[in-house]
């Protein structure tokens, strides 16, 4: 017995050592395959491709899906993609888009105007979708008739040959950029599915697509491999395989060559990546807001008390300490340095005495516990910055209780409202989205009550056709925002793209990785 167990133990040890040698990985990128890390629907493991109608911008979206237009890296000007061109009527209320012919889906069927019309109508019938599409499409004539149960078509969209004509209730200056983000899905595959729950449809495991790549292998819960789509009409993509994985340790995987591309905003990861010489990085200014939602019904009912938060916390020291170069302190929805920033807005300055004076003026009730909340519990940096905020508020005499919400943050934010200060993030498509929040009946209006002033300015903003008008409206909105201070802007958060130096053919200018733009994925190559 003793002998037996001994040899068994030795065998086990030997096996373990052998395996650990085998495990030393060396699989640098080649033209045959590259590996990208993505956050995908399902959480925890790659489950399916995210519906691009909810979030887009990942490599899998770039590689597989296409819209009528293709945006440039700034997301503002567009080039034709599925459409050959577009034309606005003089009053700006009718848009005619001409579809290219000869484009095929990956299953060999032709792309038709019906696919486009069906996609636009269906967006209003799903339960879950990105607000930028909804806000734009709600301006189309007949949109109110379409929802989960009722009519399935908008009267404002008609077709003739390859032309699609869209009639608007009022001009929408964001429609073309939004259409450049809106991915067309195949009617012939999805028409009979439950559109309400489209985001969880089996379609996403092996979607019929228009882009240069399609799903090759789908290993449930593990990884997805994309392979060239032979029905794609453009030049054939160079890289033969794109592996999409979920990485539990980006830095280690990048170092060991298991990973070739990812984007992140986690400061620790970014800091650690600076020592990985095989990667290059591109920090991107994106409209990613971090701000505090202030509940105006509690101790912060007086605007002076809300203003005190600008001075009670050392924003200019905390944000760089935690986010380094990635964080940029902002004092307005239109941050300084952006066009139309209202420079009369005072900059944040750490001044405890001023904060105390403002709180005194507001007759602030120091006996009430300030409930500081967040739902970004999984992000260490968020927990740190709010811990620091709690500490500095405690230092000026407040009683602060900082807790993350476990679970459904939207119910907590807008229905239960058991907080004084809550951290929120917003990845905005344009500045207008920051202000549109104030008059959203499903969110802020539940907290603040009806906001007709914001609503009026927001609809003017979306209809404005000249830069001068836009500038004026944005200035008015900033003034209004400073008057109310329901949201305290904290900082922008840059995204950083990390890509292996082996890969070439990538765009000279990267765009916001949370949206889709011309990133030439088909001409990437690896050596």
């Amino acid at each position, binding site marked *: *017995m*003793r002998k037996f*167990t001994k040899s068994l133990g030795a065998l086990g040890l030997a096996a373990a050592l052998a*395996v*650990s*040698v*085998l*495990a*030393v990985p060396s*699989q640098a990128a080649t033209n045959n395959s590259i*590996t990208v890390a993505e956050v995908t*629907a*399902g959480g*925890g*493991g790659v*489950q399916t491709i995210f519906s691009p109608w*909810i979030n887009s911008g990942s490599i899998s979206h770039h590689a597989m899906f296409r819209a009528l237009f293709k945006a440039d890296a700034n997301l503002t000007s567009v080039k034709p993609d599925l459409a050959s061109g577009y034309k606005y009527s003089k009053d700006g209320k009718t848009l005619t888009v001409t579809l290219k012919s000869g484009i095929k889906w990956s299953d060999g069927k032709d792309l038709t105007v019906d696919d486009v019309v069906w996609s636009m109508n269906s*967006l*209003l*019938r*799903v*339960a*879950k979708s*990105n*607000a930028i599409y*909804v806000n734009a499409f709600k301006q189309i004539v007949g949109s109110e008739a379409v*929802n*989960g*149960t009722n009519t399935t078509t908008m009267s404002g969209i008609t077709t003739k040959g390859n032309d699609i004509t869209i009639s608007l209730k009022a001009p929408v200056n964001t429609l073309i950029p939004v259409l450049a983000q809106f991915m067309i899905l195949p009617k012939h595959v999805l028409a009979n599915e439950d559109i*309400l*729950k489209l*985001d*969880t449809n089996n379609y996403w495991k092996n979607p019929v697509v228009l882009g240069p790549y399609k799903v090759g*292998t789908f*290993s*449930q*819960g*593990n*990884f997805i*491999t994309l392979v060239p789509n032979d029905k794609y009409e453009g030049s054939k993509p160079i890289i033969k395989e794109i*592996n999409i*994985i*979920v990485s*539990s*340790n980006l830095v*280690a*995987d990048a170092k*060991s060559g298991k990973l070739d591309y990812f984007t992140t905003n986690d400061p620790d990861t970014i800091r650690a990546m600076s020592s990985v010489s095989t990667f290059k990085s591109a920090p991107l200014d994106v409209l990613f807001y971090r701000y505090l939602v202030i509940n105006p019904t509690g101790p912060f009912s007086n605007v002076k008390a809300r203003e005190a938060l600008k001075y009670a916390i050392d924003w200019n020291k905390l944000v760089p300490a935690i986010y380094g170069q990635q964080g940029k302190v902002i004092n307005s929805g239109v941050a300084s340095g952006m066009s139309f920033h209202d420079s009369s807005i005072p900059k944040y300055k750490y001044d405890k005495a001023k904060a105390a004076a403002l709180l005194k003026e507001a007759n602030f009730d120091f006996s009430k516990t300030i409930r500081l909340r967040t739902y970004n*519990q999984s992000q260490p940096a968020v927990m740190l910055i709010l811990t620091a905020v709690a500490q500095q508020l405690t230092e000026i005499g407040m009683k602060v209780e900082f807790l993350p919400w*476990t*679970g*459904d*943050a*939207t*119910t907590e934010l807008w*229905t*239960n409202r058991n907080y004084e200060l809550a951290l929120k993030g917003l990845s905005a498509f344009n500045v207008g989205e920051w202000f549109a929040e104030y008059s*959203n009946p*499903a*969110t802020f209006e539940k907290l603040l009550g009806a906001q007709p002033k914001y609503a009026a300015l927001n609809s003017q903003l979306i209809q404005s056709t000249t830069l001068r008008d836009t500038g004026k409206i944005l200035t008015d909105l900033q003034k209004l925002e400073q008057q109310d201070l329901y949201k305290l802007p904290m900082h922008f958060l840059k995204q950083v793209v990390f890509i292996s130096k082996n890969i070439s053919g990538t765009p000279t200018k990267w765009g916001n990785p949370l949206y889709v733009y011309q990133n030439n994925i088909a001409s990437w190559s690896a050596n």
Partner: protein
Amino acid sequence: MVSFLIRRVAILVPMAFTISALIFFASRLSPIDPINAMVPPDMASDSANLEQLREELGLNDNIILQYFHWLKNIATGDFGYSLQSGEKISDILALRMPATLELVLSALILSTLLALTLGLFAGAKKGGVADKLSRVLGVIGIAIPDFFIGLALLNVFAFRVEWLPTGNRVAPGQVTLWDRLPNLILPVSTLTIAMLAVLIRYTRNSVLDTLNRDFVKTARSKGVPEWRVLYSHVFRNSLGPVMVLLAFRLPLLVGGSILVETVFQWPGIGTTIIAAVTASDYPVIMVVSMIIAMVILVASFLVDIIKSILDPRVRLGGGN
């Protein structure tokens, strides 16, 4: 024996029902609107769409009705859908269960083998090397939280010397169990070390007890070689209590070890539970707790049967 089994089953059934009701109604007490957990308001296209979703999910029904509906579905294997990902819960379980089984089963087997060997030698020769080693392991197992063992192993083997991968159970080109072995080593070692302490102590005591039995003394006095005494008398007779302890560990096979799975980002049931709790994905929480509870009931039933076979007094009447 038969009447004993019937008595145990008679307890089992009402307990299963009580648990299911507790799980169901406790999760309904929470103030969270499942629709909001599923579709955040800032992503809701239209309130009419949400109403329809509510209707489709049966959330407008009477709560008692919903309970029986849920029971019926569970009984027929229809576990419903996750709020977070919209996936079938049965799919999620099918995906995550093998990962947990792989981890826990390896650790259970490894720790049992090690504990039996070490415990046998430790008991056979008090104060010897095996005895000292098992004492050290016992102390480690008691004082050091299992996730700290995991963190330390990660730091040394995955980051310092870079011998072993950190987590990522499956990657492209890594499909078979053999491919995944390197990924298994660190989490399995962690769990094994954590489980070892109690097991060793148990085996050692059990061996010590057996050594004092008359039949051992008789065997020795008859001149049976010591290794034979140890193997065919002591070892086999010490197995009983260890089996009972192992039966109590069975629920781990389903529940996994939450902390160890979290440290290694192991995509098993443990991390699924954590994700579900932090996202208030209560259909998942309900199903997983229900399954774990059922496994526990069955396991304790098994323990009772083992006990009753080993000790007839248990069978004869409450003999607690």
